[in-house]
């Protein structure tokens, strides 16, 4: 975990003096050491060192909400070791709070200095997921194809659980072909640990990986380990690429066709199909039913900030379907006319709950209340053994700006827009009484913006899950997960 913190650059870095820079380099070095130690099992020590290291770096009162002593004293303590070299054991006082300085904390601070009070405390564990948008600090081992994919993923150019999984496997194919085994080791031993891991780690820094990607990675690693060490390298690589192609074909492409064929049978003449956001499998299902000559209507519900359903509505319209496009705020009206709700999935959890684009749970609840069948279309590669009872533990926090920026651009040419991205301006205090727009949310005290990606839909709202093994009740998801993803 500590590794992730090191390459992350802070914006102010260019402005600091060389002396300051040196100090920081030292601190980073120490953090790295600490991380190593941590991995070796010296947890308490490692924690301390890491905390110490971040202390030396310009820090903010990030932990204030959790601290039980007055904030001022805390700040002073943090400032104390600053002038001296951080390598000295002066930072001992930090030890007082070993329980609070958990390992991920320092990273959190480094990732987003100045923004900590803008993080919603309940979801603070999710802010550790960083989003890479630059080449800085990227490991040299990362293959260009993976690099490109990472940026496409972090900018939502490639969005959706299955699409990301396929794109990742294709990029890995290129990466594997570019790989040569160093002398003195074998492909089966070296490839996963020393070559694939940096690629995966890089992808993780771009956006948290989806369940389907996790399942695919697990499958690929197992595959690599099982390679006979006597196989010639090129042959082994070709085999791997072939198997990856087969995986994409069997677990995603053909599966999608099977699901679309099976799910489209649920759409009858006169049906009104309600769907939310965009799922490629739902799109396929609807198009399939349309191709089968069923006459039905589609209600597409969309929501901010991604407006994914726009492209779905467009493609269905072009196919000649009657489409109604509604905002999320109109769900009660949308549900009233529907006869069937079709949903895609980010992941199906082990307790039969559905993890999908945020807002799905609301749709499913409305539909279940109105006794309208809710059907989830989901490839078994997205099934997960994880269990979530709420949307808090497992989730993804997208940058809060995504929730705002579009609006700002539309409203008018606010000159402060540039300032809003950076640090709070100096005159913020003097103009505290001035009316602020949402673009200045960082300057407004007591305002936090939370942009979650997913929510969890209870299993009671789901009447059927359609996967390539057929139609299941949500309670059978773990059975199929064991069968399909764990080979049991």
């Amino acid at each position, binding site marked *: 975990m500590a590794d992730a913190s090191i390459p992350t650059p802070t914006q102010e870095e260019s402005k600091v003096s060389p002396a300051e820079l040196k100090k920081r380099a030292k601190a980073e070095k120490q953090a790295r050491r600490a991380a190593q130690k941590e991995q070796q099992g010296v947890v308490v020590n490692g924690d301390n060192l890491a905390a110490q290291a971040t202390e030396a770096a310009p820090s903010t009162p990030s932990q204030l909400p959790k601290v039980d002593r007055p904030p001022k004293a805390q700040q002073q303590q943090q400032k104390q070791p600053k002038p001296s070299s951080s390598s000295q054991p002066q930072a001992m006082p930090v030890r007082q709070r070993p329980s609070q300085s958990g390992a991920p904390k320092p990273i959190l601070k480094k990732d987003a200095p100045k923004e900590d009070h803008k993080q919603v405390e309940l979801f603070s564990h999710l802010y550790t997921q960083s989003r890479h948008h630059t080449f800085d600090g990227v490991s040299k081992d990362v293959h260009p194809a993976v690099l490109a994919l990472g940026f496409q993923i972090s900018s939502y150019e490639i969005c959706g659980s299955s699409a990301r999984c396929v794109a990742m496997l294709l990029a890995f194919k290129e990466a594997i072909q570019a790989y040569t085994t160093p002398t003195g080791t074998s492909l089966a031993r070296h490839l996963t640990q020393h070559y694939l891991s940096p690629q995966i780690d890089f992808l993780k820094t771009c956006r948290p990986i989806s369940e389907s990607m996790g399942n695919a990675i697990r499958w690929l690693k197992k595959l690599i380990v099982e390679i006979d060490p006597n196989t010639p390298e090129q042959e082994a690589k070709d085999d791997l690429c072939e198997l990856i192609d087969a995986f994409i074909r069997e677990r995603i492409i053909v599966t999608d066709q099977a699901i679309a064929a099976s799910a489209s049978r649920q759409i009858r003449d006169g049906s009104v199909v309600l769907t939310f956001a965009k799922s490629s499998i739902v799109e396929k299902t609807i198009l399939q039913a349309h191709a089968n000559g069923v006459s039905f209507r589609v209600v597409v519900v969309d929501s901010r900030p991604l407006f994914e359903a726009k492209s779905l509505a467009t493609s269905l319209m072009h196919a000649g379907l009657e489409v109604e496009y509604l905002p999320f705020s109109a769900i009660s009206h949308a549900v009233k006319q529907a006869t069937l709700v079709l949903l895609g999935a980010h992941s199906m959890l082990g307790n039969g709950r559905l993890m999908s684009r945020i807002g799905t749970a609301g749709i499913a609840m409305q539909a279940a209340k109105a006794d309208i069948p809710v059907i989830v279309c989901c490839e078994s590669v997205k099934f997960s053994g994880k269990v979530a009872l709420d949307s808090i533990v497992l989730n993804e926090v997208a940058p809060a700006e995504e929730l705002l920026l579009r609006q700002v651009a539309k409203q008018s040419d606010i000159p402060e827009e540039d300032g809003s991205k950076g640090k709070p301006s100096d005159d913020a205090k003097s103009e505290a009484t001035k009316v602020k727009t949402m673009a200045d949310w960082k300057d407004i005290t007591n305002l936090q913006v939370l942009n979650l990606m997913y929510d969890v839909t209870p299993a009671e709202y789901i009447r059927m899950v359609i996967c390539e093994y*057929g139609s299941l009740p949500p309670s059978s998801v773990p059975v199929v997960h064991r069968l399909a993803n764990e080979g049991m």
Partner: protein
Amino acid sequence: MFDIVGVYKRLLTEDEDITMPVAAIEALILAIADTPSSTVSETLDLVGKLTAELKRAIPNSISLSAGTDLFQQYLISNLQRPSSGNVDFEQMRAHLVGNGKVFVERAKAARETIAGLGRHFVRDGNVILTNGGSRVVGSMLREAAESSNGNHRGSTRFKVIWVLSSNSVSAAEDESAANIAALRERDIPVATIPSTAVAYCMDQVTQCFVGAEGVVENGGIVSRMGTYQIGMLAKAANKPFYVVSESHKFVRLYPINQQDLGIEQNVVDFRTAKGSVKDEDDARVGSDEGVADVEAQEKAPLSTALDDAVDYTPPHLISGIITESGVLLPSAVSEELIKIWF
């Protein structure tokens, strides 16, 4: 060509204890014995064709399809195994034909096992609500009445409320009469009520037992019309609602609502002074296309009469399914089916 429909109907009338899925399996085995086939795929093709024919001829094919699907899957997994290459096909076929009776015997034995398991659910002082003419429910209640005593006078004292189907009293009397008489014979008081009185009686009831024509993939059941409303009323009154069914009635069907059973049931029939609205629609389509008229006439006899009609009880109303392999939660049905099919 082998008369599969005739044989199936004959089997059902000859043996009163036989269930529809078992009759279908037996009919298929007889067909295989009767028709010379020399290869695996030929046999599978024959079974497939006969199954389709049978399903076409019987208006409500849900129950029998449980049997035919199970049999087909059995054939596929047994005949197409890679190891079967060295086993003589003729041998396999002879084995299958010879064991046809075993299927039937096992199915009958299952009912005894279920009765043995289920009788423990019946305790002193219970009032049990049940409906229809399910043989497995009947044998379970008989078993409970006889339990712990050799002279058919049991020590468990319970009462039974039997819901008769209201639309045709005489037919319902026929199918449940034997069960009711058998219980009364064993000193068990039985009350008969029309289905309109279920809600009225529900507060006296301790638990409900119903049979099923088919147990569907999500753990719901397809059963005699009226079962669904008993389930709903039992749920509303928080009374346990148990399904008693052999596991060969598990069927690969997943209805999402009542209209999704895949069979034509003319239950809701809108009428005006001119006649049924549906007929009018058909006639209008018929005048447009000409052919639909013929189709409508062909369809008509297929739709089941109301006393044979079934409804679908969703799994959330069901407390447990008593099968010969134990008492299952509805969610376990899908697991059992996945085990058979994958």
